[in-house]
């Protein structure tokens, strides 16, 4: 009974996670025994210098095959996340907003979105959306995100500006209704208006059944999406965790303090 309650609270639980990537024949360790707990309904930020392994963490959570998990565990609502295929993770409610969204030439954006939404709905045992219901749902979202309908007719991310790509990611996120959203530097390259729109896209999803990991370099996004906790990441591990104030300290003082403390330890 006690255990069950624990699992409920630890919606996403990462324990001792190490992962490496093949770097031209030599394995390169990127995550080195990372621990993190994200309770249900909370939004956490992960900040850290370049090369600390933030993006790797997001890829490993979403199931990218290039990364080999050498040791450690990840559970999502008690289920072994690492044992799932990427599409199974999507069905289980994981969504990764890519730092660099991928172009799919010749693939219509609306078709892609509808295929994805229905694949996920099918896997979740929900009824698929027909063309009319889908269009209605997607129009409501594009309006919210200040996107033109014309973007639905274009090929996925092909010829999109940086800002358009990021909005498109948020659109996908909203349509797929994840339980765990991972936003990998979604704020980079956004002007202030776009930043507000993206933040609203996330904030309006907040609730008891929505958790998020926001990976960012800057305090800026966190002004709009206030996190429940902030984790500092360096050299493949979480080296410090605290409340929203950590982000403001980082913005003022940089990572030096944590990095020297880590080196001394």
């Amino acid at each position, binding site marked *: 009974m006690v255990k069950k309650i624990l699992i409920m609270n630890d919606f996403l639980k990462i324990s001792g996670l190490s992962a490496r990537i093949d770097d031209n024949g030599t394995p390169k360790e990127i995550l080195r025994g990372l621990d993190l707990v994200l309770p249900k309904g909370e939004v956490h930020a992960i900040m850290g210098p370049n090369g600390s392994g933030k993006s790797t963490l997001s890829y490993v959570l979403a199931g990218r095959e290039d990364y080999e998990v050498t040791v450690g565990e990840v559970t999502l609502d008690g289920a072994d996340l690492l044992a799932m295929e*990427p*599409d199974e993770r*999507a069905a289980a409610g994981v969504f990764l907003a890519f730092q660099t969204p*991928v172009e*799919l030439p010749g693939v219509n954006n609306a078709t892609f979105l509808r*295929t*994805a*939404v229905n694949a996920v709905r099918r*896997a979740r045992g929900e009824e698929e959306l027909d063309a009319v219901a889908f269009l209605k749902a997607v129009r409501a979202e594009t309006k919210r995100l200040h996107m033109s309908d014309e973007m639905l007719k274009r090929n996925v991310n092909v010829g999109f500006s940086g800002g358009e790509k990021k909005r498109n990611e948020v659109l996908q996120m909203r349509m*797929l209704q994840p339980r765990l959203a991972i936003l990998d530097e979604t704020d980079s390259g956004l002007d202030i208006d776009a930043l507000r729109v993206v933040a609203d896209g996330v904030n309006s999803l907040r609730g008891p059944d929505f958790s998020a990991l926001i990976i960012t370099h800057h305090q800026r996004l966190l002004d709009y999406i206030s996190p429940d906790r902030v984790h500092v990441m360096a050299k493949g591990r979480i080296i410090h965790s605290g409340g929203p104030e950590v982000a403001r300290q980082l913005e003022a003082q940089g990572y030096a303090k944590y990095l020297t403390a880590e080196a001394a330890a």
Partner: protein
Amino acid sequence: MPAVTETRETVESLGSTSYKWGFETEIEMEIAPKGLSEDTIRLISERKDEPGWMLDWRLKAFRAWQQMEEPDWQKPKFPRIDYQDAHYFAQPKKKPGPKSLDEVDPELLRTYEKLGIPLHEQALLAGVESPEGEEARMPVAVDAVFDSVSVVTTFRKTLAESGVIFCPISDAIREHPELVQRYLGSVVPAGDNFFAALNSAVFTDGSFVFVPKGVRCPMELSTYFRINARNTGQFERTLIICEDGASVSYLEGCTAPMRDENQLHAAVVELVAMEEASIKYSTVQNWYPGDENGRGGIYNFVTKRGACRGRNSKISWTQVETGSAITWKYPSCILAGEGSVGEFYSVAVTNNRQQADTGTKMIHLAPNTRSTIIAKTISAGQSDSTYRGLVRMMPRARDARNFTQCDSLLIGNHCGAHTVPYIESRNMTARVEHEATTSKISEDQLFYCRSRGLSEEDAVGLIVNGFCKDVLKELPMEFAVEAQKLLQISLEGSVG
């Protein structure tokens, strides 16, 4: 990268099991003894009840063929074919050309049912016409060719009312000799090349279409080819003629049982378009491709050529080639009429050990002629695919234009793609453009799709269909969906 090993293993484990059309039909056949001689040709001609001029034409082609060498300039190599070790005539014993469902051998009907020809089409195949006032859902007339013999042709009567002739070519030889004599061999002469000469000598059936002056053919025409008998070659002959201002859209589909030995399919297709006429010829080729080790499969060595004879005439080839052990063909256009237009849209998919050497020839003879070539090549497994194309601008082809685009998509690290464009321009005012790209389905694209909930197969299907979109949109709408599914099935398991 571990994905490569996995890809190879998956592809190997998959093998030919994904070919869903590989069954055999038990049916009583009349089969000529093995071997090819003048006697064989006389037998074919006699069985088909042909007039003397047809036999003479065949014999002339046969004598020409005997003087010819099997070509070997193509990229796919194959063991020498023993032309004496095959049957050249096989037909279901039941008399061809039944008028009602009862007269079609039920085994044949079951075959077409199993082939998954959509239900509405089956109803048509069975020759059952819709009740008065109730429109058939998809008005497509079908000629079903089983081992080179036409077994059913639907809607012949309806088509005849608008003056369109759609029948097995063996019927046309007897019933419309003046048309056949005038056009047969006029685009692809009997001695044109080794395989065309062989076809001219021994062809047993195929489709004949004649659309008279000013008539737009009221429905899609389609021929469904099925190879069934063992050790037989398949040699069909298709002849389509559109008189001034006439137009037609025609589609061919094909499948064959799985067998360990290779079977030769050497067809000839001739198209003739007169002034302002338009012919759209679409192919969904799905012959048995052989197993994962390259054993068995059809040798698809076909000569297809269209002549734009009249002013502003147009011939458009669209092909989706997913089957056959070796595909070797170049559907071509001879642009002889001023302002005539030739088009070639192609998707060629090879997987496992399949090989393809395909493309087109656009021969610009007249002023202001235009041609467009869009060729998409997808290679997976250990397959190899070549686009080979010729664009020739002759001295009279003033202001002629060509645009060519060749794109290759590679899946995995063991396949090959090649582009061999030949361009000859003998007119200073002619303009020829050629664009080519080669790309791989990237891990990034696959992961992106999968992270959005798409299965691997759906992800590959989506990316490949996106890659082929420019070609698929040229197919008649009813068949575009089928072609998309076929692409996906052909590539099943090609990504690890």
